[in-house]
């Protein structure tokens, strides 16, 4: 039973982790908490429902399910990245040199806008995922792992590994340089603006994948899911140390495990509270988060 709970927690945690990456990457570069990031994830979930619905009516799902799912994910990434890119250009770039509070308020504005936009265009009711993945199980050490659960964990792992490898490339190095010092990065010939855009695009792409996975896993989506998921992922990012990429991954997985074991062994009534209790404890002991480095105030 413990192993089953670990699988439950790992599924949830890996989703939190890849949403948390979007928070932490943007924070690393702009020191901005992008509160609209949860909404991008919600858009991803809706786009997943819409595209898979279209593919099902076209008959593509019946012809080849993996192809339909793959195309759905690719299209969701594409559109969410476009949203991420536009969001940065419209809401944050004009405020680059404004006091730190202004972009934060702008982020909350974007979040409210996107939520209501989806509510008006898609309706205020729950949407059900158009395709039901089989209930086939993998019996594994006394636990039931559905194929979908396995794929969520696997896809998240692949994404995290590729993001880690990306950091070692030329572009990744430029991104890390920008995070360290924007002015110096510009002086050595890095196009800071395009690096910032790239950060938003990658973050939004990851959130889109998370959105599609969650929509297919739970099968139920509404315009409000981005808020809760955003808060949880933000908690994960802070838990791991905001600004740190491995920290976000670790924080997400820890959060998922705490939630599922807490709900199972203590009480399911306070499921949401466990995450925040742990967050408070960590912040009291290590204010910069588990893997966060203490940053000196830049002079």
């Amino acid at each position: 039973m413990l192993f089953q709970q670990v699988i439950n927690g790992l599924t949830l945690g890996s989703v939190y982790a890849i949403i948390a990456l979007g928070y932490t990457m943007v924070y690393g570069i702009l020191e901005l908490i992008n509160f609209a990031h949860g909404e991008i994830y919600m858009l991803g979930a809706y786009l997943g429902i819409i595209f898979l619905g279209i593919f099902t009516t076209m008959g593509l799902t019946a012809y080849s399910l993996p192809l339909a799912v793959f195309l759905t994910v690719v299209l969701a990434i594409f559109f969410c990245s476009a949203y991420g890119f536009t969001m940065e250009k419209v809401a944050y770039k004009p405020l680059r040199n404004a006091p730190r509070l202004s972009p934060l308020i702008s982020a909350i504005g974007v979040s409210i806008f996107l939520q209501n936009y989806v509510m008006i265009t898609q309706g205020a009711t729950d949407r059900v995922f158009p395709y039901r993945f089989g209930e086939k199980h993998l019996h594994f050490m006394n636990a039931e792992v559905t194929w979908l659960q396995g794929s969520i964990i696997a896809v998240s792992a692949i994404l995290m590994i590729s993001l880690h490898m990306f950091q070692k490339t030329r572009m990744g190095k430029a991104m890390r340089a920008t995070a360290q010092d924007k002015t110096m990065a510009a002086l050595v010939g890095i196009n800071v603006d395009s690096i910032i855009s790239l950060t938003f695009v990658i973050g939004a792409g990851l959130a889109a994948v998370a959105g599609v996975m969650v929509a297919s896993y739970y099968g139920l989506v509404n315009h409000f899911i981005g808020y809760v998921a955003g808060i949880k992922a933000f908690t994960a990012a802070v838990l791991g140390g905001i600004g740190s990429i491995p920290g976000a991954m670790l924080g997400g997985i820890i959060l998922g495990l705490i939630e599922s074991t807490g709900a199972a062994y203590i009480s399911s009534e306070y499921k949401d509270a466990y995450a925040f209790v742990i967050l408070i404890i960590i912040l009291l002991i290590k204010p910069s988060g588990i893997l966060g480095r203490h940053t000196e105030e830049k002079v």
Partner: protein
Amino acid sequence: MKCFSLVLTVCVAFLILGTGCSKKENTIKLAIVAQMTGAQAKIGSDFKNGGGIAAEEWNAKGGVLGKKVEIILGDDQADPKQAVEVANKLVNEGVAGIVGHYNSSCSIPASDVYNRANITMITPASTNPLVTERGYRNVLRICGRDDQQGKVAADFASKRLAIKRVAIIHDKTTYGQGLADEFRKNLGRGIEVVYAGGITIGDKDFKPVLTSIKDKKPDLIYFGGIYPETGLLVKQAREVELMAPFMSGDGSIDPKFVEIAGSKSAEGTYLTFSPDPKNIPAARGFMEKYAAKYGEMGPYSIYAYEAANILLTAIQAAGTTDGRAVMEKIHSMEFNGSLGKIKFTEKGDVAQSPYVVWITKNGKFEEYWKP
């Protein structure tokens, strides 16, 4: 100049407000209030369609007291705070009666507002005992009560299913927790409650709690709550191979439940609800009309229709929209409508409200067991 434009703005504002007020009361306003948006919005539209048909029928016959019936919609978003706000707004609009609310947690606080304003409220669906237990003469319901419903469910579990071990979950709302408590209270001595706990509405991941329930090997899982959570619970239970049958109350008997859970997982889920209106000859007319206009009827469409009809009949019989006269008329009259004969008790409950057990079969609900 600045001063002048300011004065002008104020004048225009007053003019706009004035047009709202000076409109003569040429209609009888009937409020239909439930969750029109949010996860349970399907119920809201069932209420709206059912009550709307009643208003149309009265208007086709020439209205009530010679005036047209006008439907005012209220959206409580299934949220008690919002319910009180909407209730105040409806009172200010001068509605003659209320069809609503759906959730007991909304009906109870909102009924305080209606009670102060002497407006009669008939809820088609709020089953918590407390709704009519507070001595409010203006608060009535045409559905059953959870103490009746919980007892029927408990009888079914112990006599028909002969279970030994049961897990009880609720959604922490007035309705859900109340129903789960009534169910538990009425279980016989021979049945062991192996798990009892709450979940949060709006949460999507119930696998941790279902996994620990699976470990306790229950023969039945009873859930007090509404269909979005019921659907997710049933779906995820099957995913962790928890195969024990589910049982729930009238809040889950909705096609959306099957849609969310998937008809394979939902198969064999027991639900307590009123008898099938298909077997009531008087309901046929309404059901045909509804099907032609809106498609398949929701479980509470006919209750909303009947609640609206009772209110309008009482207003017609009282000869006035005065709140006190209307509520006394409702208490003294016997109504003969699409659900058969309805007479209210002193408290405001329906005199006889038999619950039966339904079963989910091939994605549809069927009557299954009579106590």
